[in-house]
């Protein structure tokens, strides 16, 4: 069985190739990238006017399964992922039970294998039950298939626990991925600390609650040498701290989310709970500094922090509402609209940040279009305009502050191991 994607403009970050090419796929694998002729073809896909990119790689998503399947399941989550062009997803361990045991890792992997529409790699907890006290069984979890460790949703507040974790995993070649927030500073804050919070009578989360802990953890990482990955960086000060650390060759990487690089705290005006997320949407200055970091090339990945919620969790006051944004289905369009179309970075750079670069951060075999490799490919229409309608989300989580916003660029088709797992309009 051979299918050929014709006339796509291929963007391939590992070789920096950008140009028109045909891609032939035999079963699960890419056969030829270039001129496909003189072979028998079973199926042709006309990709004229479309971009072909490696399937996107998300190193930060919440699939809520096991435990919170009213918010999302592995099936709905992965269907939303492939609709967003992702063919590799790493899921955070704040499930119930948390991913601190081998059975849960196996459950997640089995579910994903049964579906077989997207690669799914579990992230194990740093501490048992994400309680911040006892270290997880790192070696067993890695052996079972965890690609990173994180207590996401919470910081590791006890510096000594984090230090011991970093020492223990030193030779594992698996990063610790940290949600950075000083809980004493953020307290019961719900939105960015600033004018909007003051005017609406909402408790604020100041920038320093993030940057101070990042600075602390960089010092700890420096003393140990283990790879530290920082999740969802949202503030100017954090970027400054990370920039300095990178200049000092500290083994640290970081991601930014589509929502933090596009939206500001203005979104919460009139108590829009869909814009409640942790870390909170920040100020215009912070967004501009994130753009600066992206264009200077120091950002290692764009990750969705896909955080689906049921309707009840958002149909309430700002204080009660859950933190989180359902992100898979708008990720590429947001990046394309707010970064590429706005002239912050090129499309090729954006694609690298959503494919090869995140794959490298977690050491995943993904993010390339290369002969002999799995045919995980996404076809993109970078020019088409559409209006986000949350009701049309495949994810159970329809919680998006992009609802009603006009975005440019969309995912047309997603191929996972040669199989078409998403096609626009179906």
């Amino acid at each position: 069985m051979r299918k050929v994607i014709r006339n796509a403009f291929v963007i391939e970050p590992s070789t920096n190739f950008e140009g028109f090419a045909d891609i032939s796929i035999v079963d699960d694998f890419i056969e030829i990238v270039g001129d496909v002729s003189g072979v028998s073809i079973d199926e042709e896909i006309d990709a004229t006017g479309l971009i072909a990119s490696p399937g996107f790689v998300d190193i930060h998503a919440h699939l809520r399964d096991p435990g919170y399947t009213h918010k999302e399941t592995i099936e709905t989550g992965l269907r939303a992922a492939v609709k967003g062009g992702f063919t590799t997803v790493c899921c955070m361990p704040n499930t119930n039970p948390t991913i601190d045991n081998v059975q849960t890792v196996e459950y997640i992997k089995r579910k994903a294998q049964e579906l077989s529409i997207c690669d799914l790699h579990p992230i194990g907890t740093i501490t048992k039950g994400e309680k911040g006290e006892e270290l997880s069984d790192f070696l067993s979890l890695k052996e079972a298939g965890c690609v990173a460790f994180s207590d996401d949703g919470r910081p590791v507040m006890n510096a000594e626990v984090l230090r011991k974790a970093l020492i223990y995993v030193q030779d594992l070649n698996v990063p610790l991925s940290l949600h950075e927030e000083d809980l004493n500073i953020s307290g019961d804050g719900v939105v960015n600390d600033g004018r909007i919070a003051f005017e609406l009578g909402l408790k604020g989360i100041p920038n320093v609650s993030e940057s101070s802990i990042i600075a602390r953890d960089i010092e700890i990482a420096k003393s140990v040498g283990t790879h530290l990955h920082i999740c969802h960086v949202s503030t100017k000060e954090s970027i400054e701290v990370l920039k300095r650390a990178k200049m000092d060759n500290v083994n640290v990487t970081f991601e930014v989310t589509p929502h933090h690089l596009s939206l500001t705290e203005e979104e919460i005006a009139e108590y829009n709970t869909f814009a409640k997320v942790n870390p909170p949407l920040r100020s215009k200055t912070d967004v501009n500094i994130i753009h600066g970091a992206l264009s200077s090339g120091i950002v290692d990945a764009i990750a969705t922090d896909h955080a689906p919620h049921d309707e009840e969790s958002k149909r309430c006051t700002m204080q009660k509402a859950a933190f989180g944004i359902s992100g898979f289905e708008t990720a590429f369009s947001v990046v394309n609209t707010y970064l590429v179309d706005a002239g912050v970075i090129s499309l090729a750079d954006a694609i690298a940040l959503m494919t090869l670069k995140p794959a490298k951060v977690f050491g995943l075999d993904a993010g390339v279009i290369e002969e002999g490799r799995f045919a995980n490919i996404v076809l993109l229409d970078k020019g088409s305009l559409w209006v986000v309608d949350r009701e049309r989300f495949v994810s159970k989580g329809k919680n998006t502050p992009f609802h009603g916003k006009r975005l440019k660029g969309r995912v047309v088709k997603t191929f996972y191991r040669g199989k078409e797992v998403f096609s626009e309009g179906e």
Partner: protein
Amino acid sequence: MKHLVGIKSLNREDVERIIDDAFRFKASKGGFEQLLQGKTIISIFFESSTRTRTSFEMAAKRMGAQVINIDYNQSSLKKGETDYDTIINLSAMHPDAFVIRHYESGYPKFLTEFTNIPIINAGDGINEHPSQALLDAVTMYEVKNTLENLKVCIIGDIIHSRVAKSHMWLAKLFNWELTFFGPKTMLPKNEWVDGVRIESQLKDALSNKDFIMFLRIQLERKSGQNIPSLKEFNRFFGLKRDNLPDTFVMHPGPVNRNVEIDSWVMDHFDKNLITKQVENGVYTRMAIFKHCLL
């Protein structure tokens, strides 16, 4: 049929009409007893406040309305029914207004998404306390005969005060010179407010003002991280006989004597408007009912 969720969503004409009506009610010896005849007002307080609740209740009854008080502790609100389910169910009984006090900012606004029956905000979290600001405006008007271009200083925990927030919106409508003062931990940053002056000395805060308004220090909240002690607060931020300016003094109450304001000032200062505020509260709330229901 109108909601009253905050001063922020009112315009000048609304405020002027409410103040006018409050004075008309205060001046008349009657004639308003039937205005709300046959109407039922449901009052739900998620946070206790004897004074505000009584003031609303008295206002409603003087206009001939029935008042039903729902005790939060006994209501289904604690038994798993969602907040909006409760308001939808109560709305189905066709009351004529809800008076709501809640500890979360934006709660009354949230309820307006689920009912067309007027929601009157009796204080929400640290967001707004519109009826307090309006009764303050009535009191100010009473002694100054205008609301225009007033010089007003508010002293205390500005960040966590719904009264200060409502006055901030009022100040914009009537072009006040508004000043905030208090311990730095309780003040907004300069860039969060425009047209508001943040003072750093008590004597500057007190000088050349038409009104000085003190806010209640919330003893019950964890104030220890914002102020070291009440004694220190009184010494550096409180109103005393020896720093008393010749200016009208207000306080939304209840006053912590010898914390915000010394007892002597409370008992002997003739420009203390605090009792007048309470008295005007009832007339103002009558005017609010008229604004929302009639």
